[in-house]
Structure formats: structure tokens, C-alpha cells
């Protein structure tokens, strides 16, 4: 009490030797360089765009410097010209269309089997014992090495491409879906059981519903695998599609067209990924 009174009535000279108060930091936003720090959306987009355009400018500079033969590295403008030429030739949409169709067919065929199988592997130990070790083994079989077999079995038709995409995605997908199912909290299952749920009700009403968002994520990730194997399939045995166009371009040394093909696949992948992310938010508004 007396201490405080003394400090309050201290003479002005005592106050003068106190250090200047630190200036308020005018930027009150969270610092950027903190492990697991925060970043607002605007700055995130700014950084992302900077990296994208930075790469583009770097590419143009290297190409324009003329030290590298344009046959090996065409500049961005050459690539855009190649895209326009492809479009004008009338093949662009047909090539994109057939490739998307193949990916979707192979991917859907995988998903239709992998989702129920993965769900049952995650639900019942006997099903797990029956299928999981086989899937773990099959997952390491190199899909690309199946090309000769696939050609032998299915010839050069559409089924060859679709089955190669299936081989490349199915086994991974089954294991990831079973993992998604295994991660459903035990308390959710046991609560249903004490309320009188049968096994099939637990699978249908709890496991599947609870794992759905994770399953959609798994499908989004494995869709990327499907595109990889599409290109493999089309490089080897096709007369249409983006992968085929890339191979044709290589034969005629149209490096710029190879670039266009690669980027188109990248852009299609990016768009589907964004669509699926939106769908995720729309379908599962209850997620924390």
C-alpha cells in the first residue's frame, strides 16, 4: 500500500530516466515464419501465384536466352502456339474426351469393387485375413510390367487401357479404403452395438457413414494414380488420347506439343481435384 503510494507520487525526474516505451508494432497480423503458424487466405493466394508466375518467367528467360536449343526446351509462347495449332487441327477435344473417358471407366471400375471390399476388410477380421495380405502383395506388382500381358489378354482395344488403369489403382484403393474404415472410432461402433444394432446395421449406418468423407478423399487421391496409368496405357497401345498425342509429338520432334500434352493432363487433374474438394465440403457440412 505504502509502496504503491510512493511510486505513484514519484518526482518527474525519476520518470524521465525510464526507457522510452516501445513503439507499438503496426503490423498486428500473425507472423508468417512460425512453425505451424497461420496465414490468411489472401497472402496464401499471393504466394501461390508468385511461385506459379515466377516459374513461368524463369522458363521464358531461360528459353529466350537462346543457350538451350528450342528443340529441347521450347518457350512458353511456343507452347501456347502449339496448343492453338492442336485446337485448330480439331483433335484437341477428341483427345481430351477419350482420355477422360478411359480414366473414368478404369477408375469407376476400381471404385465399384474397392469401396465395398475395403469397407468389409475394415469391418470383419476374417475378410481382412482373406484379402489384405493378397492386396499388400498385389500393390507391389508393377502395373507397367503388366502391359505385355494386358496386350496379350485384351488386344489393342479400349479394354486394354481400362484394365491397365484398373491394375494401377485398384489394389492401392482397396487398402486405403480399408484403412479409412479402420479409423472409425471404436466408441461409435460400440454405442451402436449397445443400442441393439446388428452387424450389418453397424456396417451400413455407422462404418460407412462415418468413413465416407475419408473415402471420398481416398478416391480423390487415387484418381491421380489413374491419370498416371492412362498415359502409360496410351503411350504403348493407342491411336487417340492425350498420351498418344504426346508419343506422336515425340516421333515428329514437336517438343512444344509434348509440353502441351503434359500440361493439359496437369490442368485436368487440378480441376477435378478442386471439384472433388468442393463436393467434399458440400456433402459433409457436419465435419469439424
Amino acid at each position, binding site marked *: 500500500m505504502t509502496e504503491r503510494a510512493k511510486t505513484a507520487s514519484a518526482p518527474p525526474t525519476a520518470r524521465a530516466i525510464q526507457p522510452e516505451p516501445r513503439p507499438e508494432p503496426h503490423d498486428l497480423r500473425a507472423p508468417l515464419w512460425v512453425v505451424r503458424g497461420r496465414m490468411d487466405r489472401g497472402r496464401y493466394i499471393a504466394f501461390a501465384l508468385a511461385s506459379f508466375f515466377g516459374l513461368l518467367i524463369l522458363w521464358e528467360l531461360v528459353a529466350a536466352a537462346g543457350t538451350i536449343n528450342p528443340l529441347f526446351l521450347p518457350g512458353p509462347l511456343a507452347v501456347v502456339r502449339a496448343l492453338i495449332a492442336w485446337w485448330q487441327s480439331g483433335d484437341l477435344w477428341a483427345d481430351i474426351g477419350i482420355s477422360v473417358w478411359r480414366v473414368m471407366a478404369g477408375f469407376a471400375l476400381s471404385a465399384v469393387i474397392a469401396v465395398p471390399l475395403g469397407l468389409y476388410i475394415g469391418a470383419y477380421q476374417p475378410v481382412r485375413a482373406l484379402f489384405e495380405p493378397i492386396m499388400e502383395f498385389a500393390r507391389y506388382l508393377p502395373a507397367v510390367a503388366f502391359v505385355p500381358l494386358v496386350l496379350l489378354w485384351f488386344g489393342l482395344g479400349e479394354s486394354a487401357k481400362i484394365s491397365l488403369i484398373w491394375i494401377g489403382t485398384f489394389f492401392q484403393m482397396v487398402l486405403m479404403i480399408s484403412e479409412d474404415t479402420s479409423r472409425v*472410432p471404436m*466408441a461409435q461402433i460400440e*454405442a451402436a452395438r*449397445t443400442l*441393439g444394432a446388428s452387424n450389418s446395421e453397424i456396417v451400413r449406418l455407422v462404418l460407412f457413414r462415418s468413413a465416407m468423407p475419408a473415402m471420398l478423399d481416398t478416391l480423390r487421391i487415387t484418381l491421380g494414380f489413374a491419370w498416371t496409368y492412362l498415359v502409360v496405357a496410351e503411350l504403348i497401345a493407342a491411336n487417340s488420347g492425350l498420351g498418344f498425342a504426346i508419343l506422336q509429338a515425340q516421333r515428329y520432334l514437336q517438343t512444344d506439343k509434348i509440353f502441351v500434352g503434359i500440361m493439359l493432363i496437369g490442368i485436368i487433374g487440378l480441376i477435378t481435384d478442386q471439384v472433388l474438394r468442393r463436393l467434399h465440403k458440400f456433402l*459433409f*457440412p457436419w465435419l469439424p
Partner: protein
Amino acid sequence: MTARVVLQSITKTFPGGFEALAPIDLALEPGSFTGIVGASGCGKSTLLRIIAGLETRSAGRILIDGEPVAGPGRDRTMVFQDYSLYPWLTVMQNIRFCRTLAVHARNATDSDIGDATRRSVALLNLMGLARVEHAYPKQLSGGMRQRVAIARALMAKPAVLLMDEPFGALDAQTREVMHDLILHVKSAEKRTIIFVTHDVEEAIYLADRVVVLAPHPGRIDTIEDIPFTARHRDLRLDPAFLTLKRRITDRIRATAGLSGDLDDLKTLTAPAG
């Protein structure tokens, strides 16, 4: 609506030979509230899970109103500590979850369905959840979530309500509110309740009878009848309450094999020389 629960020589030995429960014999009167406490590893949760049918027993019988039971059943519903709500269902849909199951829909008449609707609304009000009827669990606080879990378990009209540390993840203030809510539920619903907790005070405040389990292997150490009739916040500070709390805590300490740790502590804190 409520049932007499008899446990006859329940034992549990896990594969590998770990003896979790030595023979447990216990009879619970209809409408009674039993608190089970004990040192960690005493098998109190295992015992509750065996009664629920979620864990198999090695020997013994469980009788509900004289009928032996095997496996889980809707006559014994359970409230878990956490993560048991269905996040994709709203509060009301969670409470009514059991109505979507075949066992509850079988032979249901129109009047049953009407009763169920009335009951779900009554439970919603009893638990003070009317305002959040259409909210998803993610929008609720921990205490509110546990209220939904309790309402969901009661919706099945169980003869026995099993609670496994239902407030273990809540903060102290929310817990006290939940305690009074549970006492209110007990008087409104008149179910036989078995409540497992590590919190001695919670057990005394809520239960008619507190069973102390001793570990290695899990067995009944003491049974304390709780004499208090009026349960009110002030009871927690009542000398008789504190004496009882002290006695039960001492039993848990004595059975837990903590004396070694306490001796170590004494040598560490003893004045030098």
C-alpha cells in the same frame, strides 16, 4: 423399466494369462445408482464392458431380472467418455438413432412410434438440448455432447444405464452441472445405473452405493453405502462427506500399491542430514 442386476462370479483372464478380474459377486437393486471406483488397472472399465456385453467374460453369469444375458443388448445401453456421437447426425437424429435399428422398429405399432416421438422430445427437454435440436455435434461443447450421448442411451429405454467415465473429459465446472443433471435424470427416469469413475467425489455425490475395486487381479475391496439423502453443492463440503471421501481415497491408495511411491517421495522431501 428398471431391473435388478446380479453378477455371479464374473472373472476375466485376458489371452496371455493376465488376470483382470477375480470372481466378482454383486447384486444391484432396481433403480439403484452404483458408483465403481478404484486405482487404474483395477478392471473397473472391464467389468462395466462385460456387463454391457462389449467384452467377453471368462466365467460367471449376469442376470437381469433373473434372466441370464449374453452379448450386448438394448436393455443395457452405455455412455462412453468421448467420440461416441455420430457427427453426421443432428442432435435429434443422434438421440433417435436407436429408432433406425431393426430391433426397435420390429413389431412397432403406430402408438409406439408416437410414443417414441414424444419420448425423444421429452429427453431433449430433460437434457436441456431443445435449443440445439438441429445442431451437429461439432457445434456443441463437450458437456452438451455428453448430454446428447446420455439422451441417446436413454432413448432405447434400457433397464440398466452403464456409464464409463462419462465426464472424464469435461472441465470441473461443467462436471458439477452434469452431476446435478444426472441426479435429475435418475429421479425422472428411475433406471438402474452403474457408473464407473476415477473421481471419488463424483462417485459419492451421485451414487447410493460406492464399490471400491482393488487391482491385480480386480476384485471388490469395500462397499460403502452412501447415507446422504439431499444432494446439493454444499454436500461436497459437508464434514461427513469429506470423511467418507477420505476413507475411500485411503482404500484406493492402500490397494493401488502406491505406498512405494509415497515412501520415495518422503525420502526426497526429507530435510537433509
